[in-house]
């Protein structure tokens, strides 16, 4: 019971510190810019709703899935534990009677509702501004958004546990691996989380005429396989992070 209370405190404390941090303030920048973009495009007022849905989907894939989600999850994923490491306040958590695995799970649990809440609010905002087209997009793309967000968070937590300068590594990953490798020909693109997110989004938008890039180039897998891949990536990253965090000695804390 005491352990549960301590863990709840850790989750609450971490979530509150992240919410009222400069990370929240700066992630609002891409969110606000993208909302202004959708407001300006006013997809709901287009005569050709199929074209409007196609264009809106293109924006969601290239702008939201490939940029807003990785960047927002980067801000929370790396700062939840990485911020404590950077400030050296992690020591105050590590000397409490909470097992290390639970400390990491607490940090992860605190960042999930924050990042997911912000990103779903942002996605909801786009869909609201896009009218009927937005309603369709919400239903079609919600699983891709949720799964990608959680997968990115798990990967960035792994970075925060392993690397001292996790933000640096995460940014190289988000901008280089995801954008460059994720768009390369062949199966190398499967190292990118965004590839699976795109597969899910294209599969979700297919009934409404959204076309994936040419199959010989994009080489899509099934939506079920992509779902399992994202879930597997999340679990594997978290398990690796837990294993590393359990045994890692952070000598730089004092």
């Amino acid at each position, binding site marked *: 019971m005491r352990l549960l209370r301590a863990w709840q*405190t850790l989750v609450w404390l971490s979530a509150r510190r992240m919410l009222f941090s400069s990370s929240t303030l700066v992630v609002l920048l891409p969110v606000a810019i993208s909302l202004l973009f959708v407001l300006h495009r006013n997809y709901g007022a287009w005569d050709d709703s199929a074209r409007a849905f196609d264009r809106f989907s293109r924006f969601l894939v290239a702008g939201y899935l490939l940029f807003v989600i990785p960047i927002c999850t980067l801000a929370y994923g790396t700062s939840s534990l990485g911020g404590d490491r950077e400030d050296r*306040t992690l020591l105050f958590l590590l000397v*409490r009677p909470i097992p290390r695995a639970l400390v990491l799970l607490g940090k992860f649990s605190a960042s999930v509702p924050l990042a997911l809440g912000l990103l779903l609010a942002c996605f909801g905002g786009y869909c609201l501004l896009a009218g009927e087209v937005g309603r369709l997009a919400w239903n079609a793309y919600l699983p891709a958004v949720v799964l990608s967000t959680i997968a990115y968070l798990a990967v960035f937590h792994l970075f925060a546990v392993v690397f001292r300068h996790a933000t640096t590594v995460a940014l190289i990953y988000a901008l280089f691996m995801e954008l460059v490798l994720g768009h390369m020909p062949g199966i190398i693109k499967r190292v990118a989380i965004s590839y699976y997110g795109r597969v899910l989004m294209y599969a979700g938008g297919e009934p409404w005429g959204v076309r994936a890039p040419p199959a010989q180039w994009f080489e899509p897998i099934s939506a079920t396989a992509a779902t399992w891949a994202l879930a597997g990536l999340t679990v594997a990253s978290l398990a690796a992070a837990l294993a590393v965090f359990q045994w890692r000695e952070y000598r730089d804390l004092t």
Partner: protein
Amino acid sequence: MAELVFERVTKFYGPVIGINAVSCRLCGGIVGLLGANGAGKSTFMKLASGQLRPSLGEVRVAGRAATSAAARRRVGLSPDLHVFYEEMTGFQFVYAMARLHGYSRGEARQRTQRAIEAVGMSDRAGRRLAGASHGMRQRIKLAQAMVHDPELLLLDEPLSGIDPAGRREISLLLARWAGEGRTIVFSSHILAEVEQLADRILVLVRGRLVADGALAEVRGLLEDRPFVVALEAAEPRRLAACVAELPEVRSVEVQGETVLVRTRNPQRFFSWINELVVQEGLELRRMEMLDTGAEAVFSYLEAASA
């Protein structure tokens, strides 16, 4: 009472040895950890608080591995670190730390109030930590370390940055905690503090534990370093000539009105000198042992281990 046990503990940082085959058993009282920079004091504290795992050997707190959650419940650590959750007030920080021990809101609040009062921060606990002075930070660190009533307190430089009045207060506080049956291990560079506070000292030199015991005991074991006794007399040369005849005296040196006597056995020397003064009718104004303090002991030990 939680016992802290180091059993042949060695810690490697890659090719560098942090501490080397250290064994000790600490149970109750105030223990001063002495050592120069890089001697291994921080490594000792980190191993005792479960932040590091020993490369060889074992560290146990109350019979449990120091890295276990059960052991951490019994340990309070005040690290040599001056960062906190800067956006919080002192009270909020200590309260959050109490909650992280699993106490209910009400109990955590009570414990926080008690801890804050104990370290003399009641009037300033509502201030934000971002603007707190060094002394306030030290007190908050102590408060968070003892908020859960630990049986073993590990304090890394607890008195640095605190004004003399504050030092006195905290020294009394530590003495009171030790009197309640806690084991307090503290490291300090200020040897006078160690001398004044500690019942027992551990001296680390280049990662090795070179001395463990009460200060006087440790001093007595330094066989190659005779005690220096200063005698001030009206006739120093006559006194020196008489003293030189005594069996336990190694050497005698006259410096103005002071006679410096080096002896292996100060107890016997003092009884003989009393008899001598009476027999010879010497006028003795002052008699003082010069090198029984922590500073002398530490420098002897360091030189001996070089």
